[in-house]
């Protein structure tokens, strides 16, 4: 009888551990997130997991062609996470922190496709490639007094980003993407101004980008 109780307790514990182990859904170092939030004057966090996206998609009119496409896109996604920090004054975050955030995604799965550094403003876009298909997107947009991080998990292409503008917090962040909506295999050289060797990872996608190097990835 005791054994049964023990098995039950262990089973329950094994089931409960993942529930309690849930930390920030955004796969960033929690310390970085906390630090930035503590220094920011305004913080916006949007966390939409698969369940919530499914729920949101039900509000779309499946009969409307555009909305049906968005609905289909959202239903296929695993999550959308947005973190936006606004600061009172400049210099509230360091380039080291930006690098740390970027490095977090510099794994073999993630490939940088856009990197711009202009007048103190930074935009980084990385895609997660699985069997040559985009299964996630990380967007980091840093302005002098504002920092926005967007993580989209699930199958998505650059040209579909505009369809997500209606989702809370994404409009502004995706706005910074501007004309860079040509996809990892596309003609994104207008926006890609990266100068370091990160693009070695996805040479096949970005062979023409090295020609457009401007500022040497400061």
């Amino acid at each position, binding site marked *: 009888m005791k054994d049964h109780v023990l098995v039950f307790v262990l089973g329950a514990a094994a089931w409960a551990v993942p529930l309690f182990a849930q930390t920030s859904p955004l796969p960033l170092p929690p310390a970085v997130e906390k630090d930035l939030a503590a220094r920011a004057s305004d*913080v916006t*966090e949007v966390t*939409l997991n698969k369940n919530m996206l499914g729920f949101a998609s*039900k*509000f779309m009119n499946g009969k409307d062609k555009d909305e049906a496409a968005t609905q289909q896109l959202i239903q296929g996604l695993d999550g959308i996470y947005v973190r936006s920090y606004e600061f009172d004054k400049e210099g509230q975050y360091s380039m080291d922190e930006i690098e740390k955030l970027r490095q977090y995604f510099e794994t073999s799965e993630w490939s940088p496709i856009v990197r711009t550094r202009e007048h103190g403003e930074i935009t980084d876009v990385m895609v997660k490639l699985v069997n040559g298909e985009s299964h996630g997107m990380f967007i980091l947009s840093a302005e002098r007094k504002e920092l926005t991080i967007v993580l989209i998990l699930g199958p998505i292409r650059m040209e579909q980003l505009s369809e997500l503008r209606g989702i*809370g*917090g994404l409009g502004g962040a995706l706005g910074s993407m501007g004309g860079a909506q040509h996809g990892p295999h596309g003609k994104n050289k207008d926006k890609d101004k990266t100068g370091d060797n990160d693009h070695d990872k996805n040479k096949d996608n970005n062979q023409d980008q090295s020609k457009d190097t401007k500022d040497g990835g400061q």
Partner: protein
Amino acid sequence: MKRLWLIPVVCVVLVIPAAVVLASSGEGAFDGVVGSIESKYHVRATRIPFMGLVSLISHKATYGGVSGMHVAEIENFQTQVDGEELNRMVEQKLGAGWARMIRETSRNGKEQTLIFVHPEGNRMGMFIVDKDGNEMDVVQISVDPDHLNQSIGQYEHSHHDGDKQGDDSE
């Protein structure tokens, strides 16, 4: 035979409280959050009377789209609110089943928005805490997107029809 009229009366008397009780299920978490806010920030929340009945009516009016409504309003909220602390308190009172969907916080504490959701089968429970200036609203509702979309769609169609008619008349 004369007392047959008693049957519908008794039914109504029995059904209404049952419906009100059902509509006010989930009140525990709501009262827990409101109570914590009241004691932490020394404020007094105004609860709307007969909310269970209002909830029942909204359930009928939206064809089941919205139900389980709870609303509390706190006026003259002068105390500064630490966003992190408020979030922790609400999270703790709601329990593990609720996930935070949106959090908006300003350091000066004047604006705070928290939206939590909780899947309930085909429905989604929503818990909203919103502080704007000296006013805070706490709202809990249960939403059925399919039914709500349907009832919203009705108005959209009639609105478009109205537009068309207006265009025709021009």
